[in-house]
């Protein structure tokens, strides 16, 4: 009797000490606490937030409610430097830029560079996001198949061997050369560029996801879920995919950055997004011809790309640090 009450008091005192401990922070809180310390990553995040807002505003103001018109040609006003006003007597009122000022100057056709950059921000970002969306989907699908169903035999080879050999095959292609070849042979279209960049860059994601799945498959919570008789799609999508997402998220963030760079490289070689779409890549590549006469046509898109790609890279690297518990402890 005494021992029982002694046990009870021991348990209750343990409960008190547990209650006195600080409340356990959720994964999200922990992630945010670590990310907050990384000033570069926070800088990247802020820039990306601003950029996303800007891109949406840009879509609205350049296409739906036209405030900034990127395609108006004003020949009397060509090659005006930034912050110069429109010539009031030559340009009809409806063609004038907002407040009558060209914020970023005008190009060789007198188009407002600010409006074109705005339009380009949406196009460039959507190229990045859609290309990465495609590559991440393919990567998760193939990596997941290979990691979860890898042991199933198809005739004489396993699913895992088949998919991983195919990944090796894709890794053998010189990526930029392949993208260039396909984009050059296909009819020029913005969708082709997105698809081609996406289809040629999923291999890293597939490998990450496969490795994560291989280790997750052996872990207790997955075995428990299997023992409970949960349907396989539920085990995969509800229990395994969220746990495998950390490296995918990091490589996706950096992937958007490299897709924007690839697009500008394609534009430089003349196979980028064709008019009437303006992207930062093709504004930059058109601007290189006027580097002496109108340097703003070259430097404004160049630095815009630099800042945005840098923001993506820094944010991605911050994510990697914050999501990777092994790195964190050091």
């Amino acid at each position, binding site marked *: 009797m005494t021992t029982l009450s002694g046990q009870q008091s021991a348990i209750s005192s343990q409960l008190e000490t547990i209650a006195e401990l600080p409340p356990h922070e959720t994964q999200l809180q922990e992630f945010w606490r670590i990310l907050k310390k990384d000033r*570069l990553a926070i800088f990247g995040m802020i820039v990306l937030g601003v950029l996303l807002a800007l891109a949406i505003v840009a879509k609205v103001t350049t296409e739906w409610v036209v405030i900034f018109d990127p395609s108006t040609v004003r020949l009397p006003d060509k090659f005006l430097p930034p912050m110069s006003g429109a010539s009031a007597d030559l340009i009809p009122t409806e063609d004038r830029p907002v407040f009558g000022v060209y914020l970023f100057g005008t190009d060789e056709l007198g188009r407002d560079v600010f409006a074109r950059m705005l339009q380009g921000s949406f196009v460039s970002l959507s190229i990045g996001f859609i290309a990465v969306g495609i590559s991440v989907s393919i990567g998760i699908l193939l990596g997941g198949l290979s990691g979860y169903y890898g042991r199933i035999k198809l005739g004489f080879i396993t699913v895992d061997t088949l998919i991983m*050999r*195919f990944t*090796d*095959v894709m*890794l*053998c*292609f*010189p*990526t*930029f*050369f*392949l993208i*260039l*070849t*396909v984009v*050059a*042979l*296909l*009819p020029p279209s913005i969708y082709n560029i997105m698809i081609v960049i996406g289809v040629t860059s999923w291999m890293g994601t597939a490998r990450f996801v496969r490795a994560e799945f291989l280790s997750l498959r052996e872990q207790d919570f997955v075995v428990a879920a299997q023992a409970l008789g949960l349907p396989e799609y539920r085990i995969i999508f509800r229990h395994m995919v969220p746990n495998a997402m950390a490296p995918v998220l990091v490589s996706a963030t950096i992937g958007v*950055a490299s897709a924007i*760079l690839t697009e*500008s*490289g394609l534009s*430089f*070689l003349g196979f980028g997004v064709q008019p009437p779409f303006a992207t930062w*890549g093709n504004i*930059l*590549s058109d601007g*290189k011809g006027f*580097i002496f006469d109108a340097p703003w046509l*070259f430097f404004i898109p*160049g630095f815009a*790309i*630099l800042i945005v*790609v*840098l923001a*993506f*890279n*820094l944010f991605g*690297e911050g994510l990697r640090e914050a999501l990777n518990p092994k790195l964190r402890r*050091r």
Partner: protein
Amino acid sequence: MAQARAHSGLLTMWTYIARNILQRIVTLLIVSIVAHSVIHLAPGEPSQVDPSNPRMKPSDIENIRAAFHLDDPLHLQYAYWIRDLFTGELKSFKDNQPVLPKIWQRFLNSLPLLICATLIIWSLSFPTGIHAAIRRGSVYDRSTTFTAYALISIPGFFLSYIMILWVVDTFNVPVIGMKTFGMEDADLAFRSMDRLWHLVIPSLMSAIGGIAVLSRYVRSQMLEVVGQDYIRTARAKGLSEDTVIYRHALQNALLPFVTMFGFLLPALIGGSVIFEQIFAWPGLGRLGYEAILARDFPVILTINFIAAVLTLAGTLVSDLLYAVVDPRIRLQ
């Protein structure tokens, strides 16, 4: 007994290599089939490059198509291509020159660029990365980190144009082509100096991305090693900091980089298109670009094939090197 074990070890080593090579040959075969189908199934034919030329009669187009087997079924075209490639009779669609000597010549042009760029990358990124890792969190570390990210994030041709403007204005260094036109009769010393000056800026520019990536990699690898127990032991023994860092840590941190030697050659083709285009360098990447413009399928396919061969050979070499350098993963 020991001899027998050593012998069987050698045998497994050879079977390992043989199996690896076989696997890679199969991969190569699939790569070539995929590349061939992608290129031939895409719209746009070599005979359509110049459709507005009034001298091109329909019969000419038919002749061209027949000469290049363009009307045969796809698998036959593939067979013709492989046969011609290995007998060395593959001809370019554009000028009917044999493809292999053409590629070889351009490869020789690209080679000095590649060697210079590699030397620059390796000699700059190791000191930078090691230094940053040793002084983790210092101003030096943070500024190199930021610089590295900035260099990765800048479009290569944007930076090159700025560099060209600055360099030509300040140092008067030539930036176009491989040599100055009209220098053929000059003294050998002059010609080689001219070659060297032409090499400086292109190789520096194509090295920049590599420096940024590799120095980051060296840094993280170094950090990984510095946190290990044996480094603490070495410090506890009372070894000097230099011995700990340069003998105990660096040697182990260098292991993964052995494998990177394998990837040097394939980098030649993929990354060089833009830089060779900027600096008018008559190299392999530019040949590929010209071939794409002219729908010169044999050249495109062969460059792609060679790139795949180099990649596969590179991974094979790096796997073997790794097994040689790191006894822990020696083949079971």
